[in-house]
């Protein structure tokens, strides 16, 4: 399994100083943090499920704290002559098990129904197929059937590749790695998937909003893992077509 001859990431770790500058300015982020709520399908799923599970978690946490507090206030040694000797209450314990079981079943249902909804979209016919190749330590995007390839050098040459996508079209990503395991992360739609060498992973997504966001590698992949970033730019259909017309062949950035 020798490294492929067409390896795009020819930069070797040993030739680049780790202190080579990072330029924070280039990371002008359009939508970062919690403000990046958009009505992309995945974002909806994430928001819905995260809200329900957070609410659930907060209720449980507060109830446990209240029970602990009650015990610590009312059952302190200063207030009590002797401790209760009861150490079992089968009916109560059994009912609790049934109750927790029902809660767990609800959470499983919540998880699985939302998951299958998302998985289903992967198998529908896409309008566009983009091949994503990860390598140490940057990205290459190939537009299948369009003779357009975009590749960056990431922080080495300070060129982040930009993944340009049409709005409201189903895009299927076919992801593969050139060397080690990487992970393609689009934080603004809460989606990531790993890239393996000699193996193609796929997922599909429809982007509902135009804008520019950061994406990055989320699996540790060696010396400059933290450099592996890219831009995602979602354009209207006509703007995307114009962009594609000007990007025949191989482009950097």
């Amino acid at each position, binding site marked *: *399994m020798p490294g492929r001859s067409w390896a795009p990431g020819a930069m070797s770790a040993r030739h680049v100083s780790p202190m080579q500058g*990072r330029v*924070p300015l280039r990371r002008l*982020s359009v939508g*970062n*943090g919690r403000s990046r709520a958009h009505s992309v399908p*995945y974002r909806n799923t*994430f928001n819905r*499920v*995260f809200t329900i*599970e957070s609410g*659930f*978690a907060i209720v*449980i*946490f507060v109830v*446990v704290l209240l029970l*602990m507090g*009650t*015990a*610590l206030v009312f*059952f*302190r*040694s200063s207030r*009590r002559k*002797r*401790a*209760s*000797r*009861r*150490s*079992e209450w089968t009916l109560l*314990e059994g009912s*609790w*098990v049934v109750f*927790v079981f029902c809660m*767990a079943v609800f*959470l499983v249902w*919540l*998880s699985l129904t*939302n998951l299958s909804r998302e998985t289903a979209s992967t198998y529908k016919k896409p309008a566009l197929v983009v091949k994503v190749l990860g390598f140490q330590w940057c990205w290459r995007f190939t537009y299948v059937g369009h003779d357009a390839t975009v590749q960056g050098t990431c922080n080495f040459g300070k060129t982040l590749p930009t993944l340009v996508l049409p709005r409201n079209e189903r895009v299927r990503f076919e992801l593969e790695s050139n060397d*080690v395991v990487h*992970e393609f992360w689009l*934080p603004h739609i*809460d*989606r*990531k*998937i*790993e890239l*393996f*060498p*000699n193996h193609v*992973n796929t*997922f599909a997504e429809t982007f509902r909003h135009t804008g520019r966001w950061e994406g*990055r590698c989320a*699996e*540790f*992949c*060696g010396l400059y*893992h*933290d450099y592996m970033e890219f831009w995602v730019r979602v354009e209207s259909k006509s703007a995307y077509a114009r962009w594609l017309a000007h990007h025949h062949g191989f482009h950097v950035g």
Partner: protein
Amino acid sequence: MTELVAPPQPLPLVPEAIQPRAGIVGWIASTDHKRIALMTVGVSLVCFVIFGCMALLMRSQLARPAQHLVSNQVYNELFTFHGSGMIVLFLTPLAVAFGVYLVPLQVGAPMIAAARTCLFSFWLYVSGAIVLLLSLATSRPADAGWYAYTPLSDSRYSPGTGTDLWLLGMIMAVSAMMIMSGCVVWTALRLRAPGVTLTRMPVFTWSEVVTCMMSVASFPALVAAMGMIAVGRVDPNIFSHDTWDLAYQFVFWFYGHPVVYVMFFPFVGCVATVLAAFSRKKYFGYHFTIVALLAFAAGSMVVFGHHLFTTGQSTNPYFSLTSIMLAVPAGVEYFGFIATLMGGKITIRTPMLFALAFIPQFLIGGLTGIMLATPVLDYEFHGSYFVVAHFHYTLFAGSLFGAMAGIYYWFPKATGVVLDEKLGKLNFWILLIGTNATFGPMFVQGFDGLPRRVASYSSNLGVDGFTLASSIGAGIIALGVGVFLFNVAKSLVVRVPAGVDPWGLGQGLEWVTASPPPLFNFDELHPIPRVKSYAPLLDLRQEVEDAQVGEAVAQVDGVGGGALPAGGAGP
């Protein structure tokens, strides 16, 4: 305490000649489980300090965005060693060593089963630690992360002997703990004193039995995974592409998930013990808890796929189902904690403070675990600081607090001297603040998109305040650990004698014998009392209490005593 002791069980008399050997050889060649355990705890604490310092270095670098105190290469080595060291050289050995010390005492055994094998495993562990740390002395230390995914960890991307030494150290340390675990299980299953049936073993002993069964079942997978890398480093073509590039992750996580439970079950046992003792009650819901622990252990073997949700190669619905269902045994454990407190007569001492803090802090780890077991959320959180926050809440805010509860509680038993209570409380509050200041903000960092294992980040992410808080918190934790080590040192110098039971609340058989216990744990002066339940000393104390009440009633009524029912009112 000895006057409470009911008819002693016949014990083999220990000849005068068989006394523990003095001097350093008496320690390093001892087959006494107490000495093996104390040495293991000591080495693991040294490892804790070493790998904790690495965490401090990383937090210094991450305190400000785009900061480079250390190079990327060094940073990658730091988190590789911090992760693997804390897991295989600190928490796992600490968890098993608690069992090596306490299980023989709690089941009334004079020694640990396969004592020489146990001693061997200690030395294998120490050798593993040394070999693993030697990796740091090479020109290219291991730097592929603690789960060392292939192909990154192979000889093309991680050349040199550094990674080889690291692999060997991992194999040695993990094998050692697998062997030591076997000794603990064997002791609990085969060396129990007369009267100590399986359902009269204390909750702590059960937690150790379950822990050690998990390590025996899952640690071979780590040896297989590390062995796979070792072979692949010679020639990766021995494996098919998908085996090498992909299947490795499955082998690794078959160990990687159960080991998390190995690192927290014994401390759940510590918390349960301390809560019961300081509430002056038997642990509530014993039978349900034991079944829950066993179910938890069985479940731990079928949830590893939740680490692989984003590989696109895992059966996500199945692993989401199994992982979330673990909330059921966890719920039973929490019920036991709360119900033990309810109706008690609670005294708050240092061990109790740590045990009480464990409850909500570990709960945060558990509840965020449910989120990570939900694939549609994990697709966002995987590989981010949200995950880092989650497992530090389980392993630091949870396990370490449970371990501190256990250490403060059993320190007098193991050393014969008590720890300073004022310093203990100081230690607790500093650690509490430091822990939450460090790991709480990490949830926000992850939510805002900060990936883990990055040597630096941009301020455009908008998490600068949170990363700074985490770094300051790490400093506070270091201060808390410093207070703890000072307390241990001071108490060992000042030497306030502990007596048989300085708390006066002990429930297990370990509290009937001397502090520290004699060579074979129990002797004519400290015989094993009658064991009628999983809290034999509490039974005896309650009998005395009833006798006194009975006498009082008899004096008032002029009637014979013993009229009070044994079972009191419910909570």
